[in-house]
């Protein structure tokens, strides 16, 4: 395949591909996201190939990136009629092949059923997908990430062609500024303004950097994008580089995402083959190279200056931002750093045009945002909603409400820099400003839903413990302050907390936020502060009543066996390493509270859920 010498060659090739793909063959798209892979999507794939060969049926199998509905993994979608089969097992394959691929029937038992049992075979009708608006992740379910042609067939790189042939760098910047696009990394800084100041900065050599560190625990949108649709991210970087006037790009991928590195380097290779990367792209005098840099395993490297330090081969220590990285960034040269999702949104803006794009979202927050909806939610998965949608829509319409009919307690957004929001805030629109005002933060997009069985103090301590380990230790307030806050929370968890502790906690929180060097330190107190504002009663319960409402803090709870539910099966007694549980066969068992280590193994393994902790 020789290189595209001009934009026309690219569009001509796109036409050819389109004609080839909408042929008679059925496409079986199998979700290959990290979650599905963990559930055995490989076995299903091999079984599917076997079955098709056995029956000499020709069909196009596509193992795609994460399609979003992780709760119902592994997923199979039969195109073009878009039938969605969920929680598919290898043994279901023959039936699917026979009925849906050979014939046109639907295997009813494998289809999604809504809460009152009605089957909904069509993928787009399933409530999880219907309530979403897919813009950035629209192409992912239709592409094999290792195949550049799939992306081009869906109109990939046409935005780049349009930009290179008909727009000047300044026009591109003004388009992005007009679009109102704000950084998806969590800060929400207007991307257009950032590109403009980087373009204006002195110096010939400039860098374009993609921040794929995604250190927030509970967030995997960037991972899904990189693994599912690497070319869209690359195309965004190319457009940005052209606008800023840079010829060198870096992508800093997190240590825990080896598959993302694989798919992205393969994408780079293929783009280079097609002349979409390297010297004189599409015959123009714009050239751009991208180097992949694998992170060393440090959350702090998500911060721009620390990331650049890591890129320079140094320890990831942030520096004061009095001098902006767009003027003096990597190797002290102007560098424009954006998040994976921000880069991936750029081609969508250019393709659909600013008018269409600004229709989505609210007044100051334009476009859509991807979230990873996890925790005690029915439909855990990767979603994309327009900015301004309310939390309630996300949690209940898309998320399907709380699993196991438990009561909703809180939703945590923004990862370790974000905050805990109570039920009262569920009608808050999800955008940069409103979340910030509520004491939380958009963050990269992790949304962790918690129910009555979670403890707010424990979650706050978890985040502080995480930040204590991830702090680079360079500046005093973050290194010492976070540890002292965590120690106070540990005291409260043990039931030794006092009301003065809460005041000290607040005081430290403000000092750490005021005087830390980088974002990690500045935003570390947010989880604690927001939990203190919205869930003060839980703190008081721990301090005064020495009770843990969520039943998590070991020192304050005990395990009980409910007589009415216990059928005496003895599983709990077998599992208990401390053999604190006694009881004869088929008789109600009892837990000896002194011996009980509160390890929770019994509760986990009890078939009749007869064990509770209070």
């Amino acid at each position, binding site marked *: 395949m020789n290189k595209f010498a001009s934009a026309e060659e690219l569009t001509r090739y796109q036409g050819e591909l389109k004609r080839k793909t909408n042929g008679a063959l059925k496409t079986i798209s199998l979700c290959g996201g990290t979650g599905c892979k*963990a559930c055995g999507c490989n076995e299903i794939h091999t079984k599917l190939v076997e079955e098709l060969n056995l029956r000499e049926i020709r069909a196009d199998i596509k193992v795609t990136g994460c399609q979003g509905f992780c709760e119902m993994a592994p997923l199979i979608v039969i195109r073009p009629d878009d039938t969605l089969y969920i929680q598919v097992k290898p043994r279901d394959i023959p039936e699917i092949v026979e009925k849906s691929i050979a014939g046109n029937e639907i295997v009813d038992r494998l289809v999604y059923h809504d809460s009152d049992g009605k089957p909904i075979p069509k993928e787009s009708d399933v409530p999880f997908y219907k309530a979403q608006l897919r813009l950035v992740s629209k192409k992912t379910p239709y592409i094999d990430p290792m195949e550049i042609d799939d992306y081009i067939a869906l109109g990939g790189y046409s935005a780049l062609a349009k930009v290179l042939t008909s727009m000047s760098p300044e026009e591109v910047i003004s388009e992005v500024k007009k679009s109102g696009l704000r950084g998806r990394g969590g800060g929400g800084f207007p991307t257009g303004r950032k590109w403009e100041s980087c373009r204006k900065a002195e110096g010939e050599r400039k860098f374009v950097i993609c921040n794929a560190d995604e250190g927030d625990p509970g*967030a995997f949108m960037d*991972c899904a994008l990189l693994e599912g649709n690497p070319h869209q991210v690359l195309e965004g970087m190319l457009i940005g580089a052209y606008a800023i006037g840079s010829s060198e790009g870096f992508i800093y991928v997190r240590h825990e995402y080896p598959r993302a590195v694989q798919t992205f380097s393969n994408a780079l290779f293929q783009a280079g083959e097609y002349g979409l990367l390297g010297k004189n792209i599409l015959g123009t005098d714009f050239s751009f190279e991208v*180097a992949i840099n694998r*992170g060393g395993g440090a959350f702090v490297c998500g911060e721009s200056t620390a990331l650049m330090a890591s890129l320079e*081969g140094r320890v990831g220590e942030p520096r004061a931002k009095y001098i902006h990285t767009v003027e003096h960034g990597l190797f002290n040269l102007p560098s424009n750093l954006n998040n994976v999702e921000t880069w991936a949104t750029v081609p969508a803006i250019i393709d659909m045009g600013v008018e269409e794009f600004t229709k989505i979202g609210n007044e100051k927050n334009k476009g859509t945002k991807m979230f990873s909806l996890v925790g*005690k939610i029915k439909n855990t998965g990767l979603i994309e909603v327009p900015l301004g949608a309310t939390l309630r829509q996300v949690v209940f319409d898309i998320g399907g409400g709380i699993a196991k009919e438990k009561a909703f307690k809180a939703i945590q957004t923004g990862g370790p820099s974000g905050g805990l929001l109570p039920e009262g805030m569920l009608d808050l629109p999800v955008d940069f400003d409103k979340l910030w005002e509520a004491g939380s933060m958009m963050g990269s997009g992790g949304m962790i839903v918690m129910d009555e069985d979670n403890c707010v103090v424990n979650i706050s301590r978890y985040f502080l413990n995480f930040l204590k380990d991830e702090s680079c230790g360079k500046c005093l307030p973050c290194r010492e302050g976070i540890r002292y806050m965590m120690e106070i929370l540990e005291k409260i968890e043990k039931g030794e907390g006092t009301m003065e502790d809460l005041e000290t906690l607040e005081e430290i929180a403000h000092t750490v936020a005021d005087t830390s060097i980088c974002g990690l330190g500045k935003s570390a107190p947010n989880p604690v502060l927001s939990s203190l504002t919205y869930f003060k009663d839980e703190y008081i319960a721990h301090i005064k009543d020495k009770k843990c409402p969520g039943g998590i803090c070991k020192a304050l709870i005990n395990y009980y066996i409910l007589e009415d539910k216990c059928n005496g099966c003895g599983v709990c007694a077998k599992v208990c390493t401390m053999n604190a549980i006694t009881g004869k066969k088929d008789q109600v068992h009892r837990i000896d509270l002194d011996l009980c280590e509160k*390890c929770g*193994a019994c509760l986990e393994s009890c078939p009749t859920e007869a064990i509770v902790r209070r």
Partner: protein
Amino acid sequence: MLQVEMNKKKVDAELDEMLAGYERDRTEVIMVLQDIQDKYNWLPQEALTYVAKNWQIPMTDMYHIVTFYKAFSLKPRGKHILQLCLGTACHVREAPFILDALERDHGIKNRETTDDGLFTLETVNCVGACAQGPILIIDGQMRGNMTQTKVGGIIRKLRKAHKEEVAENE
């Protein structure tokens, strides 16, 4: 610190051949270290001095880098690498209970290698499979919906397999 003497000449030769592709540019140092760690399962001192010499990085920077980033280990790691995800989603689904169980029932402490050199436990933050939390990755292979009992079973199976292997080649 478990001091394992590696034969310097042998290590240098292996590294020469393995790292030939790199351009000896400072931005590669972290990736080079990761490649070395993949090969030896840990970072021997001989490898560090090799990289320091060839990439012209002072030993002071090297030592800070290998102790700063969690990916690197200065001690030999176990035969099986256990990575327990402690991301928020997994935390909320009681991953810490599994961490306590590993230490209490099987004597495998976080960020340490068991004395018999069989297991090394590391905690990671979110590997992107939150729907199947809590996640335990055993030698790169992800296992979802873990519970204390399931983990106990896996550990015992691995220990038995190891015992048999040892018995075989004796």
